[in-house]
């Protein structure tokens, strides 16, 4: 318990960001029309793929002799990429349909 409190105190800055980001997130989407709920959920889903940065770092620092680590890290990068690329592509496809162009198709 003590260790955790120490950790919070040492990393104060991170925890301030943590709290402030919560409010930014709420503030930024508080006025969303229902029409955009689905695309927005999909878009924020793509953003949670930012974990790809962590998976690149983890695979990048894994010892090439640590096979288990390599496999797990490889999977992490692969899955996170799926999340990012697929997420943005699906969102884009949803939003494309909102384009107002008379006489399309």
């Amino acid at each position, binding site marked *: 318990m003590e*260790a*955790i409190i120490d950790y919070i105190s040492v990393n104060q800055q991170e925890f301030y*960001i*943590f709290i402030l*980001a*919560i*409010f930014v*997130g*709420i503030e*930024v*989407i*508080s006025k969303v*029309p*229902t*029409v955009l*709920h*689905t695309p*927005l*959920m999909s*878009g*924020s*889903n*793509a*953003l*949670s*793929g930012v*974990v*790809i*940065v*962590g*998976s690149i*770092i*983890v*695979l*990048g*620092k*894994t*010892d*090439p002799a*640590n096979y288990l680590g390599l496999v797990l*890290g490889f999977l*992490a*990068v*692969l*899955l996170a*990429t799926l*999340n*990012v*690329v*697929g997420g*943005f592509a*699906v*969102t*884009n*496809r*949803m*939003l494309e*349909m909102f384009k107002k*162009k008379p006489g399309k*198709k």
Partner: protein
Amino acid sequence: MILQLIDICYLVAVVLFILGIKLMSHPESARKGNSIALAGMILAIVASFLTPGLNNIALILIAIALGTVGGLYSAKTVQMTAMPQLVSFFNGMGGAAAALIGLVEYGDLPVSDTGKGAVLMASLIIGSVSFSGSMIAMGKLQGVIKDIRVNKILAFIVLGFSIALAVYVLNAGEAQPLLVYGLVLLALIYGLLFVYPIGGADMPVVISLLNSLTGVTAATTGLLYDNKVMLMGGILVGSAGLLLTLLMAKAMNRSVSNILFTSFGSASGVSAAGADGDQVAKEINTYDSAILLAYAKRVVVVPGYGLAVAQAQHAVHDLEKILEEKGVEVTYGIHPVAGRMPGHMNVLLAESDVSYDKLIEMEDMNEQLPNTDVVMVIGANDVVNPAANDDPSSPIYGMPILEVNRATNVIVIKRSMSSGYAGIQNALFFDPKTRMLFGDAKKVLNGLVSEVKNM
């Protein structure tokens, strides 16, 4: 110098994320928002490649290439109806990635670092729950997995064990790799137990919540690496996702805890016995329906999931155009949770170029319904079920509905008399004003178009 450059890239990426989400909340700027968020993501990925001493670059590039191909392929080829499943799938991938990072990192982290250890345990547990939960949610939307009743207490015991293991591992004093795998396994099982009993109609809310959880794991991973772009991006998704969850639950007039901790199945047993008896629904054929529509002044279309399944969005737009040529005013009544996700119907109809101003939201539509000659319900069920207003024993009691029985005539286009996603019978079908038009939505609508044309 390189470290500073990375920091600045991350900072710019965070700004782009916030701007992206902000722009995504307005219809005109939404596409731009998506591109800006994507630019931020690319910048963050490029910056992470600059990390000093990065090994295995070939492996990383191969993984990214494979993921890109897979992601693009599935996103481009998916059917409109299956998009919610795909979002759920991608979300699960993010959660799994976070959990995998935690597993690799556990081997490297000094055991004495309890603070980071606690963050890592959180990553592992939340990431695993998000992964297995998303997979079940996907299976349910796909119709592969049925509702299973699960003892809530059992689920919490599993989660409790997982957390207890995490606490034990943190205080063990030496590395416990086996126990770590054990706690991940328990967390995965909790994810299954958590989503299994939740009714399919509530899946959008669950996916939004799981999406928020994946954001939180990205943030805890950020804490692990003192990486601000992951921290900020993750929390942004976490809080935005949570707010979205609350908004969706509100649209269904249910509290989140009600959705998560009481299953649909438990309530419906009571109401089934009372209502129906030997009521008979009245059928109507295409020709009579066409007459009814062509000579109406105001027609309202209420689309539901059935429209999406039948891919009938273009057919319904054709019918709208031909009716308008005959001087009939056609609008669409959009229930906030019609389909499988909020906004599902808007997206679907936008695909067939139905004009925006014809899509009327529920509250406004309910005011107009008494002056409407014909309501055409296409593949919608629970969102027009009057039991939500007048049957307290019904599991959907209290959910706001489109009050279509206030219009003069109701035509229900449906494949059969089977019940809706909530699994309950609909008294609307037995209303004296209602006529049933059985068949596949697309075929029926095309039939109506040619009948109206010939008049």
